């Protein structure tokens, strides 16, 4: 128990945790959007994120990014990476919806069936990224896929430097960008869902699919929209991830997906702001736990916090409901 370390640098650990949690939050949005509308857990969402990281890596490799490029170039490449990741992740999410979920929805299959399908899909994507692509493209694109199932490194796009220091807590530029970008993406999504015509359709379907259909909302289009939105958020997370950690691997998604899903449940699944709160909270809790004991216990602490929260607030911190929160 290392209380001195934790409380001595509480601000620093909090900032570290928030930056870590921002990525959870962005991924959690994908779970929460789909759950809010369809009431099902899209377990394959973590793989949507992983596809995004590979897209970032692909673009950066294609443009020949070197470590620590000048600022203007870095900004350009970040935007390029974001576009690629959003495209790849959104596309993957859409394909998953069309190929696997839609036939199941047509038959009104029970949630368990969706779950197993999603697990099968994750397995397929993980294996394609980890084995099929390295095997078939390995010769020409070693930098992209490396050896089968191996962790692949990316160039450092922004060198981490303390940006400013407040009361002994230094925030690095990478942490700053991560947090701001996550908040901006969140705000955009929140605006989109709550203030636009399309968003109204999403909320309508979430509240009552039949009535929404009667009112002329195209349900399939709304569902495609939420999958794409979730995918784009995962793409943004993928970019921030690539910037922060600089690695990717085919089986990266499993653990992260679990964390992001926990974050979504913690905040109240189906609730956008809940996903943000849950993600940030989970990140902070994990860093605190890892500081107090060590990293090998952080998952235990994260899950215990989840169980405790669920015992007292059975629908998460902010409650469920995508539409109802504002209806």
């Amino acid at each position, binding site marked *: 128990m290392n209380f001195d370390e934790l409380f001595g*640098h509480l601000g620093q*650990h909090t900032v*570290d945790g928030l930056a870590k949690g921002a990525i959870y939050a962005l991924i959690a949005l994908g779970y929460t959007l789909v759950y809010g509308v369809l009431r099902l857990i899209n377990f394959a969402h973590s793989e949507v994120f992983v596809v995004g990281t590979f897209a970032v890596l692909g673009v950066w490799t294609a443009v020949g990014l070197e*470590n620590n490029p000048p600022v203007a170039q870095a900004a350009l490449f970040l935007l390029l990476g974001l576009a690629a990741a959003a495209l790849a992740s959104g596309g993957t999410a859409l394909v998953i919806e069309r190929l696997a979920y839609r036939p199941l929805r047509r038959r009104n299959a029970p949630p368990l069936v969706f779950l197993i399908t999603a697990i099968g899909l994750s397995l397929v994507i993980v294996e394609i990224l980890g084995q099929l692509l390295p095997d078939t493209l390995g010769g020409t694109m070693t930098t992209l896929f*490396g050896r089968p199932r191996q962790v692949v490194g990316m160039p*450092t796009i922004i060198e981490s430097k303390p940006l400013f220091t407040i009361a002994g807590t230094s925030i690095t530029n990478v942490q700053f960008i991560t947090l701001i970008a996550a908040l901006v993406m969140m705000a955009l999504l929140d605006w989109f869902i709550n203030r636009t015509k399309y968003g109204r359709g999403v909320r309508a379907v979430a509240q009552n699919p039949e009535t929404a259909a009667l009112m002329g909302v195209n349900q399939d289009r709304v569902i495609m929209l939420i999958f794409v939105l979730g995918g784009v958020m995962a793409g943004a997370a993928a970019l921030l991830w690539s910037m922060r950690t*600089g690695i990717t691997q085919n089986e990266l998604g499993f653990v992260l997906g679990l964390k992001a899903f926990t974050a979504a449940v913690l905040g109240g699944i189906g609730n956008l702001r809940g996903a943000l709160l849950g993600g940030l909270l989970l990140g902070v809790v994990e*860093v605190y736990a890892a500081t107090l004991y060590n990293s*090998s216990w952080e998952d235990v602490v994260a899950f215990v916090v989840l169980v405790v929260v669920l015992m007292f607030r059975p629908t998460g911190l902010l409650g469920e409901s995508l539409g109802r929160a504002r209806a």
Partner: protein
Amino acid sequence: MRRKYVRALSTTALAAVMVAAAGCQDTGGSTADSAKCGGKIAIFGAFTGDNAGLVIPSLNGAKLAVEQHNTAKPDCQVTLQEFDTQGAPDQATPIANQVAGDQSYLGVIGGHFSGESDATMLTYQAAGMAMVSPSATRIDLSQKGVKSFFRVVGHDGTQAAAVTAYLKRQNAQKVFVIDDGSAYGAGITAELGKLLGPLQVSTDKIQERQNQFDATVSKVKSASPDWIFYGGYTREAAPLVRQLRAANVTAKFIAPDGLYDTAFPEGASGGAEGAIVTCPCLPADKAGGTFAADYQKKYNIAPGSYGAEGYDAAKIFLDAFEAGKQTRADILEFVRTYDKQGTSKYIKFDANGDVDPTKVVIWAYQVKGNEIVPLEELKIS
């Protein structure tokens, strides 16, 4: 209804007759006596699955040895049969049952992980087969009194001693010790802790498949060590060292042979520059043979961790076949008394089946770009 049953019955009877007619003598198991030389050996380990990257070099090394042997000695053909365990003891055990029960297998290379070795060593001992492991490093594996277990790799104690020797020579003052909780990483780190004593200022434990190391980085920063030791594999080491460097931690980084693999610098994209990796294995040019070049030529990649050990393990059996050994017992005896320069190190087993500690040579290597280049030889004592 009744007619259907009659028909079903007659079909069954017919099938039974046909089966009896087609039934043939089960010949599985007996080897042809015509060949006076050569035979069959098995190799088992995690050849697929998430941990395959650690084990494939060893498999490739063994394959290379067998292939070279078979080309050079057409009248002494050796078959190397792969058995994939995915590193799981519960998959390795039925495979051990299979290999032990099939008398045509005369020896076995493996296991590659300590767990699967532990789970199967009694079975192979009961079958009287020599078992040569290229990469199972847990100390107590060789101290259970199992007489058929050998390993061509130094155990955790040896490697911890090597790291300590290097650190002491470099006059390290404060060493921050991190491990990944795996059998290999935690084992070696525990040994190192005993050897380092007061030099070890602080420790941290991460988890397998962890990607973000903020808490570890903070701990390292507040301990401000001059050296960081990491016990584990490349999967976690690459992002860890990278994030340490990104947070401007300048302490030197040292790790045992789990990171002796170009995947480490590649995955760390520059973060691993200058890191020290100790390995009880000889540099390619010192080994005398053409192993590294041959390996590079065949697989188009440098032999990573344990590539040379896999080659050596296979070589022991190949030498046994060449010496005309044709039974499990003879081969076991041959391995026990093996005494020869190998590719990775000088190979001679002590009573426990470990490579003779006095013959182990340990080298320190350094990461330069995407290469791991030899630095200097280390003397343990």
